[in-house]
């Protein structure tokens, strides 16, 4: 509990995190296909502006521009050797912006997935993944991050590898998964699975939860599931609605009002770290800040109340109900 984020949650009750990184950077002129992490070195003022946008909108914490800053992702841009450098630069700029603020602002070092598949069906080994995560983690900590923030993970194998990589750096961390396939991650992990996964970890996160995924309703259903048996703070970082194609570019249809409603419901569902993901701009964060500060924590909503407020779920079940997982009758299992 002596890390800064746990202290902040204890003091304030809830923490407002930040919004989108990609969406905001594209508004600052990033071209599709260019790795945003290069800007930590090539366009530092734009990254400062990105961070400052969250701070000015009222965030208590923002994530660094280092989501793809691991050697596996950077290899696709022929820059696999720059993982440490770009991670450190992301955090250094973050530290600078946070320290300038009169309020206490935490710098959370973003660590995204490797983009490779692990486990029986994949080809990335545990050891290689651990090394990659350690390298990124070390860069972020050396740049001045207060806490590390693993996000958009789909498989328990990768979540474990990230934990192990971070453990070698010895930093406090938060880890969220993306539940985008009928309430599960694309690898089939349910919210209940995640609670159990985190519970048994040797070097567990100080907070866990969900980010990205489909819509705000689905994300809150996951948060409800997590909150049933959670033994630590929960993160909710949902997208600002659904992406739509308008006049040649992509626009997320969630309004600031919708995101304010989402933020209040997220807190009522049991989340104590609340933010946005894709499509969430400073204007949304401002509305969320105002709503959270101006209202008491509501009672835990029902699924029906969530769908009435934020729209329908993408699937009837998220795999956590009492109904047994449907199984196909076969001639006989061999395993």
């Amino acid at each position, binding site marked *: 509990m002596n890390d800064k984020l746990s202290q902040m949650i204890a003091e304030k009750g809830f923490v407002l995190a930040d919004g989108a990184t990609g969406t905001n950077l594209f508004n600052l002129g990033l071209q599709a296909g260019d790795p945003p992490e290069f800007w930590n070195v090539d366009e530092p003022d734009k990254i400062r502006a990105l961070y400052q946008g969250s701070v000015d909108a009222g965030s208590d914490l923002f994530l660094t521009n280092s989501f793809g800053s691991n050697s596996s992702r950077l290899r696709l841009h022929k820059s696999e050797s720059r993982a440490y450098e770009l991670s450190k630069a992301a955090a250094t700029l973050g530290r600078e912006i946070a320290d300038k603020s009169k309020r206490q602002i935490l710098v959370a070092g973003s660590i995204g997935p490797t983009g490779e598949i692990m486990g029986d*069906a994949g080809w990335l080994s545990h050891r290689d993944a651990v090394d990659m995560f350690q390298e990124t983690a070390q860069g972020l900590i050396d740049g001045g991050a207060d806490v590390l923030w693993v996000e958009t993970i789909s498989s328990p194998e990768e979540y474990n590898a990230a934990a192990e990589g971070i453990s070698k750096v010895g930093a406090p961390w938060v880890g969220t998964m993306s539940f985008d396939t009928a309430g599960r991650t694309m690898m089939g992990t349910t919210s209940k699975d995640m609670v159990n996964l985190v519970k048994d970890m040797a070097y567990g996160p100080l907070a866990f939860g969900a980010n990205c995924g489909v819509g705000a309703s689905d994300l809150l259903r996951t948060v409800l599931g997590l909150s049933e048996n959670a033994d630590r703070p929960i993160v909710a970082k949902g997208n600002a609605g659904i992406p739509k*194609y308008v006049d040649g570019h992509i626009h997320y249809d969630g309004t600031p009002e919708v995101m304010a409603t989402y933020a209040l419901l997220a807190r009522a569902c049991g989340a104590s770290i609340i933010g946005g993901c894709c499509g969430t701009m400073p204007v949304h964060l401002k509305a969320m800040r105002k709503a959270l500060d101006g209202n008491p924590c509501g009672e835990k909503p029902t699924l029906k109340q969530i769908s009435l407020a934020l729209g329908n779920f993408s699937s009837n079940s998220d795999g956590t109900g009492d109904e047994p997982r449907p199984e196909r009758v076969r*001639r006989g299992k061999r395993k």
Partner: protein
Amino acid sequence: MSDEQDIILADLSDEELTLQMHDDLYDGMKEEIAESVNILLGRGWMPYDILTKALVEGMRIVGIDFRDGILFVPEVLLAANAMKGGMFILKPLLAETGAPRLGNMLIGTVKGDIHDIGKNLVTMMMEGAGFEVKDLGINNPVENYLQELENGEYDILGMSALLTTTMPYMKVVIDTMIEKGMRDDYVVMVGGAPLNEEFSKAIGADAYCRDAAVAVETAKEFMAKKHNQMVI
């Protein structure tokens, strides 16, 4: 048969063996699939019959359960890998025997986008369904698609994008196809996490495919329509 027991594949009747192969595909058992393919070949089965009745049918079941949220990516990857074990044996034989093809597909992730897990799944499932697929890989400018379409004989173009910032590029490809007067020669299917039906219509694609299983179903429907038109 629910007890765990050793199954002697060679002792099974043709019908039982085919059903066992469906199960073994479902469980991702590559060696067993290869063994069964060889047994059926030894019994005088035509390669095309083994492909359609055993492998494609087995993958169809995998696809249904993937679509319905019973199987997830890891299981599908293992099943596709087992299918490959069978295809490795069958492919040269299919070419020799002049077996009919379901259709040809060109697939690739669009320019600016380096994500390929979903695209690879579609490729595997399409091959599992009996399609011939050429994979252009990631980060493809419009020229890559057009050059390959012009040089090959394709029925279907598949485009994938994971990023909201790269999905608009699909429209660039489609618009260029229209300019060149070749748009109507192909079925254009699009997919990727941030896409939806509305987007696919807005950019002028023929179909949005939510996942790899839906891609296979959609491709089959279009090919059936195409064949019907040819008969008329």
